[in-house]
């Protein structure tokens, strides 16, 4: 693979990995809370069913995108990716500057555990446990699906590295969850969100620009320049917000 291909291959895999890591750490917290109160079988089955739906979505949408004209895809997905990436970056900057609080996985675990205890006892099939873990895994996973599809839409060859990155993070989070049986409160979620926000904003800006006919200097290498530019901008924004 050429060095030019790696300028997109590496960041796309990293984006899939980090985004998936952030979202599945949040989903794991709920699965652990539900499983520890209501029992593991239906909680795990709910999460697995949601993962199956997500895989189906990626496979279906990924193949559908190849039928749409590339110019339309780049403008549309580029714009949506910029909006998605800047939203994550905006929130991560405010959290890094201390303007809004960081997410607390231990507190989320305690809240979810209390909520599950309020539900009545069950016999046999536990619909509450299944529904809770299915919904949270699917809702968190939708963001991962969007990111993977958006990356694959910008360059179809990047669908695989982005998917592999996302899958690697899912397996890692699941393995850690099985090993420690506690919320992964020490994972630097905001730093990961910060990085994903920068990467997606850079990808989106590049694809949107390509879609409207901008000729980027150095072609694909401009993506690395945009990543660096968004990084400097974001660090500056943290300082501005923290004053």
């Amino acid at each position: 693979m050429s060095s030019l291909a790696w300028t997109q291959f590496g960041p796309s895999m990293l984006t899939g990995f980090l985004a998936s890591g952030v979202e599945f750490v949040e989903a794991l917290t709920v699965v652990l809370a539900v499983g520890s109160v209501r029992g593991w079988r239906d909680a795990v089955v709910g999460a697995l069913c949601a993962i199956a739906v997500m895989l189906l979505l990626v496979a279906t949408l990924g193949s559908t995108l190849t039928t749409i004209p590339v110019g339309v895809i780049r403008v549309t997905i580029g714009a949506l990716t910029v909006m998605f990436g800047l939203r994550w970056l905006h929130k991560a900057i405010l959290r890094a500057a201390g303007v809004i609080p960081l997410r607390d996985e231990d507190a989320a675990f305690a809240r979810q555990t209390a909520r599950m205890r309020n539900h009545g006892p069950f016999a046999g099939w536990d619909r509450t446990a299944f529904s809770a873990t299915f919904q949270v895994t699917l809702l968190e996973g939708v963001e991962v699906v969007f990111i993977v599809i958006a990356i694959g839409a910008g360059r179809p060859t990047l669908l695989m590295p982005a998917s592999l990155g996302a899958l690697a993070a899912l397996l890692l989070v699941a393995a850690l969850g099985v090993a420690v049986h506690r919320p992964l409160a020490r994972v630097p979620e905001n730093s990961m969100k910060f990085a994903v926000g920068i990467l997606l904003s850079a990808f989106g800006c590049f694809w949107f620009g390509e879609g409207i006919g901008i000729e980027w200097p150095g072609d694909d290498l401009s993506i690395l320049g945009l990543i660096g530019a968004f990084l400097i901008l974001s660090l500056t924004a943290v300082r501005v917000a923290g004053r």
Partner: protein
Amino acid sequence: MSAPISATDRFLRKMVGLFVDDWRFALTVAGWLLLAGLLLPRFSMAGGWAGLILFAGLGLILVDSVRRQARH
């Protein structure tokens, strides 16, 4: 029937929430993209100026929104 409606509602909110936390910020970004999409292709700018203008607009919107929220 209340549980399925609630789940659908949550899903729709999540869909919108993929792109919008702060409506003012999201609409400003969308507006800038629309403006850039309409205007930048009309000017043939060499040397990456069009890309720089696109990035600069997004950067200004981000920093301004962060600064505004930090003051509130």
